[in-house]
């Protein structure tokens, strides 16, 4: 029996190897292959999940409408699970084997930084959905990113604080790359706005209770406001723990709060949270002459119709922007990668979910502080904040 099993296995393995090495059937020539490396599962799946769904939805729609310049898009999504080593493997695979036109993603900064050099070497357009500023600073020729700059979010928050007369704050950050980068920016920019950080704490991305730390911070009566910087569920937990403890100083969140589910999870405690975000979350409340409005409403309606289980979030929006930018580049420059890259670098006034993109050779992010709007939570919904 065992012998038979063993032989069988040998056969299966040989088959796998042979099958694995047979050349991949080439797709029809006019298709544009777009690779995407996203953390659909694993610890960063709250990013990769909406991103993957958004891309699938968009490609379906673009192809239904005749494609880009008559060329159909072919989307290849690779689930990295948030693992850099897989992102590296997938990047090489997409570049050489699938010969994709461009790569969207990865979802996290750590992964993006690992494949930045690979994209440069292979002269492959990389449109990252990750936030860290090091991705585009220093600028790499082929690497772009769509989320707004942390530093702009910090400035927006500090600006609002100044208006409110707040100068002494506590900072809480998650121990993810996002939280870490935010912490750095918060500390660097504080003096510029005359703000003093009295306490700073880092919590685990899987933290489920922050009441102890809230109690500790609350004991410091000088703290006038709390800034929380993370992209994880703990954002809602912090709000609950603060309000339950009866601590009613203003709570500021980062632009990572841009998911209505966090508001739902925070319930009554989420009321009054102030945070900067792209305008996607308040699409309906925008004035009709806002250049982003049509696009934002359409994305929101489309997404929530196609995925009734899910609510639109800014994370999916980053993937939306990445593909929008790529499509705009191809529409302008055709199917020559170099020309598309140049076209993207020169895109101006392109509305996206995160803001209006204005790329330049020095700026591969293309967004400025005006892409942010200060939002707040009112009656369980996002609303534009006004003092």
């Amino acid at each position, binding site marked *: 029996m065992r012998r038979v099993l063993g032989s069988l296995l040998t056969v299966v393995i040989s088959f796998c190897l042979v099958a694995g090495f047979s050349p991949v059937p080439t797709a029809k020539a006019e298709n544009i292959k777009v690779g995407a490396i996203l953390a659909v599962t694993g610890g960063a799946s709250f990013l990769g999940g909406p991103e993957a769904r958004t891309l699938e939805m968009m490609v379906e729609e673009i192809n239904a409408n005749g494609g880009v310049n008559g060329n159909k898009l072919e989307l290849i999504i690779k689930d990295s699970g948030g693992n850099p080593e897989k992102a590296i493997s997938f990047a090489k695979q997409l570049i050489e084997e699938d010969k994709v036109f461009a790569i969207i993603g990865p979802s996290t900064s750590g992964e993006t930084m690992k494949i930045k050099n690979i994209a440069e070497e292979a002269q492959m357009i990389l449109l990252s959905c990750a936030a860290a500023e090091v991705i585009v600073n220093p600028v790499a020729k082929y690497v772009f990113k769509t989320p707004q700059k942390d530093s702009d979010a910090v400035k927006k928050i500090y600006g609002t604080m100044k208006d409110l007369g707040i100068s002494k704050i506590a900072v809480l950050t998650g121990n993810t790359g996002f939280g870490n980068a935010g912490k750095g920016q918060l500390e660097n920019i504080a003096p510029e706005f005359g703000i003093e950080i009295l306490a700073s704490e880092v919590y685990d991305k899987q*933290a489920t209770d922050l009441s102890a730390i809230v109690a500790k911070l609350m004991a410091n009566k000088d703290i006038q406001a709390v800034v929380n910087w993370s992209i994880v569920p703990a954002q809602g937990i912090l709000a609950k723990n603060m309000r339950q*403890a009866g601590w009613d100083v203003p709570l500021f969140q980062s632009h990572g709060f841009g998911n209505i589910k966090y508001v739902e999870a925070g319930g009554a405690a989420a009321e009054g949270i102030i945070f900067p975000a792209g305008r996607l979350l308040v699409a309906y409340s925008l004035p009709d002459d806002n250049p982003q409005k049509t696009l934002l409403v359409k994305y929101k309606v489309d997404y929530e119709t196609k995925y009734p289980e899910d609510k639109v979030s800014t994370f999916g929006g980053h993937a939306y922007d990445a593909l929008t930018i790529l499509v705009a580049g191809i529409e302008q420059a055709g199917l020559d990668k170099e020309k598309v890259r140049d076209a993207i670098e020169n895109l101006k006034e392109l509305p996206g979910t995160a803001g209006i993109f204005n790329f330049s050779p020095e700026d591969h992010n293309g967004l400025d502080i005006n892409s942010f709007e200060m939002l707040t939570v009112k009656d369980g919904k996002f609303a534009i904040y006004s003092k």
Partner: protein
Amino acid sequence: MTPELFIQYLFAGITYGIIYAIVAIGFNIIYNTTGIINFAQGEFVMLGGMIAITMNAFMPMTLAIMVAVLITMVVGALIEMVFIRWLESPSVLRMIIITIGISILAREVALHIWGESVRALPYFIGNEVTSVSILGARISPQVLWVIGVCSLMVAGLSLFFKFTSLGREMRACAANRRAATLCGINTKNMVTLSFVLSAGIGAVAGCVMSPITYSDYSMGPNLAIKGFTVAILGGLGNSLAAVAAGLLLGIIEAFSVSVLPLAFQDAIATAILLLILFIRPHGLFGSSEAASLKEF
């Protein structure tokens, strides 16, 4: 430290401590009847919470929780019957690997059913901002729910093991499996029952804690490690000691934020685990003599 701060820390510690204790008791129940550490124990807690949240959309919360607990118990029974029951004296290594596999599988199934998003049951009383004042500290009533329900479960379990014939049979099975078989106890059914029981208490804990901590597909392993630390700390198999150890760990974690950066809070349990394994593997409350008689 002000008295209010002290009370605040204390309650935070007790809340988590009692949850860890419930997970640890789940470990102990199965360990006692089978000698297996069920690495998938944390997944029972996850399943309880997630199913209750889904059910809550169709029915009142009390009913939803009851249904969730029942379903989780059935899942526990199924796991035992499909994966464990028919193995003839499997090695410890084999069981460790199988239960780890079950834990991964349960998590992945949950991911594909519920997706990656985080959910929560509504608060049993009031809402997210409701709080009651105890000795100057302000505590969410849900914390009292957690402490109350979990304490009741612990008390109920002790009574069950002490005074019901079923409970006594399970204890007999734990003490000496072969002897129990000779006395006409169906040890296989006792093992199934132990899985059902520990799945049940895990699910209840998963429901009551959900409003406070949220539920998502990946919450299991973290809880399992804390629970295991507590089980070892109390001495494997000793459920009352597990409660003490759970409270101890919870309170240490809560108070640690006043001296250590918050980032290290989760490392504390692991450090304690290693420390206790190195210097006193039979636990704080166990005796080494008794531990050495157990087979590993």
